[in-house]
């Protein structure tokens, strides 16, 4: 077969699988699962083929919208180092999660729906990876949003799950609002939506630095939404209402990283933009990684701890875009994070299943002896997450922090001190869940999960440990320019790590029944969620009720019904105008108001 077709097959196989499951096997869970796994394996296999053949490029395009001479949006495929790495990461992890799901979802009533949505997700995610233009990326960007919505709402009978799905979609739409506006601005400035053309034509915009700054920051809004950066991070912890494999694949390893991937994709544009753009990106990332770290230290739900840690780690990647001279710094952390965070979630899922859907860490404990494979794998993932030397996370994360040392000292201190927080919440999780005595009935009788679940764990544990080593990295990334930070920077990072680990050991190694130190501010997530609840209920709700009242009683009521009561007084006026009905009156009234407004505002 023509290798040129491989990327197209990779892209459309999952969509075809989703369609087949939806229309043919919507009542056959086993068949649905098999088809999904086969599609993922095929996509994965071909992705590796594409990855191993660097000379392959795809020139064919499918026209999507074509207005001759005016506007054109193709569905085109871009193959470069960036997309090749992303292809293998996404499809490999997806394959493992698809297989693992067969174990995790056993007995669920909605398995076909689950797998159809997972396949739709894989299609959309691959679309983002392969997109060669902004509009195509936006299309798939929205589609991952909707598949995430469906999957978070998988247990739709639960109110919390239903609300979380809705919230995830809406918060992402807020980010997408900015993203689309940014795309419109860049298009108007450069005359194209294709990445390469935007980059090439950007010189014409440098006349308007303010415009370019605004455009880039608006595009960045897409990342803030999708990659759960402050202040739009609230949806990600709530998305943990979805099944754990979904949290692992979408809300940890791949989908949420799409925001970072997009920034890496447009990195040349960001470099050409005024410096303030990357400064804002850096600080959004830095604040996110620190604040999410704070919140993670006081969560009790095992998945929520990991969710806040994901937000925090995504913050590091965004910082990487803001400080490093190459997008590879961020991509490298995305790469290692994808493995170890996916591993951590799947381990958490293994624990949750073993404990009959118990997610409170204060009802766990002593699981090391009862679930040794899961425990050791989670230890590997945890050490990588904390950035322990010789584990993958340390290479990629320290690299970003060192870049910060060189280019933004204040940013360095914020991101380095977040390492302290990472160490605390990671070791807290490991100590409480796996050491000490079981704190509950279920923990007492926990058993190791079946092979279909533990095998993906073991497979993932390998890259979670080794993915950072230069010999492994070189296989995926070109040689990176060095940050060139002095040894002191690295020592400071290690000191923060050690301090966090020691503090966690002091607090949690003795096997307490509850958090020895409770900080309500962090446990309540800095009250940001409460603020949003207030905003939606009071401000948006209030505005809506007010508008509705106005529509009913002023625009409709006064114009039509209310006028009936005053019509005898104004009767002679109407008679003069020779129109007898109230709607006419309403019309003149409305036209008058509009005319007055119009002349007041525009003349």
């Amino acid at each position, binding site marked *: 077969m023509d290798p040129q077709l491989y990327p197209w097959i990779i892209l459309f196989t999952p969509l075809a699988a989703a369609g087949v499951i939806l229309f043919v096997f919507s009542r056959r869970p086993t068949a649905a699962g098999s088809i999904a796994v086969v599609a993922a394996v095929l996509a994965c296999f071909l992705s590796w083929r594409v990855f191993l053949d660097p000379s392959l490029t795809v020139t064919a395009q499918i026209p*999507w919208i074509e207005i001759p001479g005016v506007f054109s949006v193709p569905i085109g495929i871009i193959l470069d180092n960036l997309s090749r790495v992303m292809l293998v990461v996404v499809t490999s992890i997806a394959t493992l999660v698809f297989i693992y799901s067969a174990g995790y979802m056993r007995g669920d009533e909605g398995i076909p729906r689950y797998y159809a949505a997972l396949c739709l997700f894989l299609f959309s995610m691959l679309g983002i990876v392969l997109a060669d233009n902004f509009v195509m990326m936006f*299309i798939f960007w929205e589609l991952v949003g909707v598949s995430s919505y469906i999957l978070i709402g998988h247990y739709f009978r639960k109110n919390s799950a*239903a609300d979380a799905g809705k919230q995830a979609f809406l918060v992402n739409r807020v980010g997408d609002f900015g993203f689309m506006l940014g795309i419109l601005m860049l298009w*108007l400035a450069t005359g194209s939506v294709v990445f390469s053309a935007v980059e090439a034509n950007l010189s014409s915009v440098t006349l308007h630095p303010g*415009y370019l700054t605004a455009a880039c920051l608006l595009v960045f809004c897409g990342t803030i939404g999708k990659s759960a950066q402050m202040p739009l991070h609230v949806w990600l912890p709530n998305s943990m209402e979805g099944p754990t494999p979904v949290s692992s694949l979408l809300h940890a390893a791949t989908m949420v990283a799409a925001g970072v991937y997009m920034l890496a994709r447009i990195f040349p544009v960001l470099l050409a933009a005024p410096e303030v753009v990357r400064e804002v990106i850096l600080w959004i990332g830095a604040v996110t990684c620190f604040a999410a770290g704070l919140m993670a230290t006081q969560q009790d739900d095992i998945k929520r701890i990991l969710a806040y840690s994901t937000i925090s780690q995504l913050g590091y990647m965004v910082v990487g875009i803001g400080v490093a001279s190459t997008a590879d710094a961020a991509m490298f952390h995305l790469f290692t994070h994808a493995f170890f965070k996916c591993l951590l979630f799947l381990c958490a899922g293994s624990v949750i299943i073993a404990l009959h859907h118990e997610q409170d860490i204060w009802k766990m404990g002593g699981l090391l002896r009862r679930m040794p494979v899961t425990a050791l794998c989670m230890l590997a993932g945890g050490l990588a997450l904390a950035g322990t030397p010789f584990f993958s996370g340390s290479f990629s994360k320290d690299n970003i922090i060192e870049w910060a040392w060189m280019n933004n000292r204040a940013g360095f201190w914020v991101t380095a001190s977040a390492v302290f927080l990472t160490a605390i919440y990671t070791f807290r999780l490991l100590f409480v869940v796996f050491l000490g005595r079981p704190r509950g009935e279920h923990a007492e009788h926990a058993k190791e999960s079946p092979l279909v679940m533990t095998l993906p764990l073991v497979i993932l544990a390998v890259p979670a440990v080794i993915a950072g080593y230069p010999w492994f990295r070189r296989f995926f990334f070109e040689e990176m320019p060095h940050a060139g930070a002095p040894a002191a920077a690295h020592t400071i990072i290690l000191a923060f790590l050690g301090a966090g680990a020691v503090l966690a050991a002091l607090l949690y190694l003795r096997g307490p029944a509850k958090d020895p130190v409770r900080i309500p501010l962090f446990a309540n997530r800095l009250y940001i969620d409460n603020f949003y609840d207030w905003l939606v209920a009071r401000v948006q709700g209030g*505005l809506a009720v007010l*508008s509705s009242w106005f529509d009913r009683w002023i625009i409709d009521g006064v114009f039509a019904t209310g006028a009936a009561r005053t019509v005898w007084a104004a009767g002679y006026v109407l008679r003069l105008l020779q129109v007898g*009905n109230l*709607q006419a009156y309403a019309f003149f009234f409305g036209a008058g108001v509009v005319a007055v407004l119009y002349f007041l505002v*525009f003349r």
Partner: protein
Amino acid sequence: MTPSPLLSLILIPLVTALFCMAGAAPRRISIFGAGANLLLSLYLLASYNQAIGGFQFVSENPLFAAYGISFSLGVDGLSLVLLLLCTLVTFAAVWVTPKIEKQEGMFYACLLFISVGAVGAFASIDLFFFYAFHELALIPTFLLIGIWGSGERQRIAWKVTIYLAFGSFILLLGLIGLWLAAPDNLRSLDIRMLQQLGYAGLLSPGPAVYLLLLFGFGILIALFPFHTWAPEAYASAPAPAAMLHAGVLKKFGLYGLLRLAVPIFPAEIQQFAHLLLVLLLGNILYVGFVTIAQKRLNLMLGYSSVMHMGYAFLGLAALNQLGLGGMALMMFAHGLTIAALFALCGEIARRTGTLEFSELGGMAGITPKLGLLFGFAAMASVGLPGFSSFAGEILIFFGAFARGATGCFNWFQTATALALWGVVISAVYMLRAYRRVFWGGRGTAVKDEIADISAGSRWAIILLLAALLVTGFRPGLLLEYLNPVFAYLPQ
């Protein structure tokens, strides 16, 4: 009289309606007639010669030569797309019509008469018949709400009809003004002629006539602040009637603006663009917020349909190929989407006896197919990529934004940015509705014995959704008809 397939397109539903009134088995022949019309409109699309373009299948039949009135039919790419919309929605509407207790024959006849009016208006190239056909469709709308409606059906039927008749009256004044504006020797009711005069700059009726047309058509489209008739009407009307009115007949106003205002009044559209931008933001933002506050599904859908008209007006205000092409595409997509939503809304009401959000909930567990279809339609409504609603909206946004420049935002760019926020608003109310009706705990009105959507209704809605998906994956299928219509415009 030259025979034209367009005449059959009008006659088929007309004759079918007469048969229904005469007492033939109404459902069967209605489905048959509407199906034949759908096939015929597809045939017309396929046999339209794109290389030649312009109006084709033309037949002229002078009736009152003294007044220049002629029963002339003809279609170009734009009218063909709308004819397809009309026949698709008509077919789906008669298909999903449930058992009617009183006057079944009359019910189907009314539906088909709306279709006759819409087809006639879209296929007429004579101003008089263009107007008259639309008026014809208002009568069955009145009857459908007044006889078969729910709630305060008679008050609402009167209100809607007077409101729409008043809009039509303003429109009539505008059309007369348009007719009078032409030089004596060139006076014509032929839309082709009027367009030619417009392109040649020989027809300049002035701003007053434009405003009459804008507000006349505007009232029919539910342009803010003349929108309050619409949600009530759609909420009260039986589902098939709401499908046809919101899906098809309301597009008459937009079609009229594209047909008459764009070629003849380009300068006036520019002159009053600010006014239009303010009003359309009223549709998108203000009505958007009103939509969020709704506590009943049918009212919410009615308001959402009003809100979406704002996007169409944004395309008009942009007045370039992108904006107008997007507007036409969006009209098609919106018609299918809102028809599917009203059909499903009717299915829900028949099962639960209520549309109050507070009494609904958790239906996806009991009626999964209904839930899935509503999910698809809701996603089409919020403009998810993959549906042609997205293609239409995005073209409108690009078109309107292109009216500004790099640097400081002008009015168009500001309006585009604000209109984009509507995309968030529509997601808020749609997802909330889906959450309240289909997800979460079981509502008090949702009983265990509720049956899932029947196979017949299911396929009717799948037809609408499939059309949305096909044109969403390949907008080019419609754009190749629409592009030439607006190709003369500057970018």
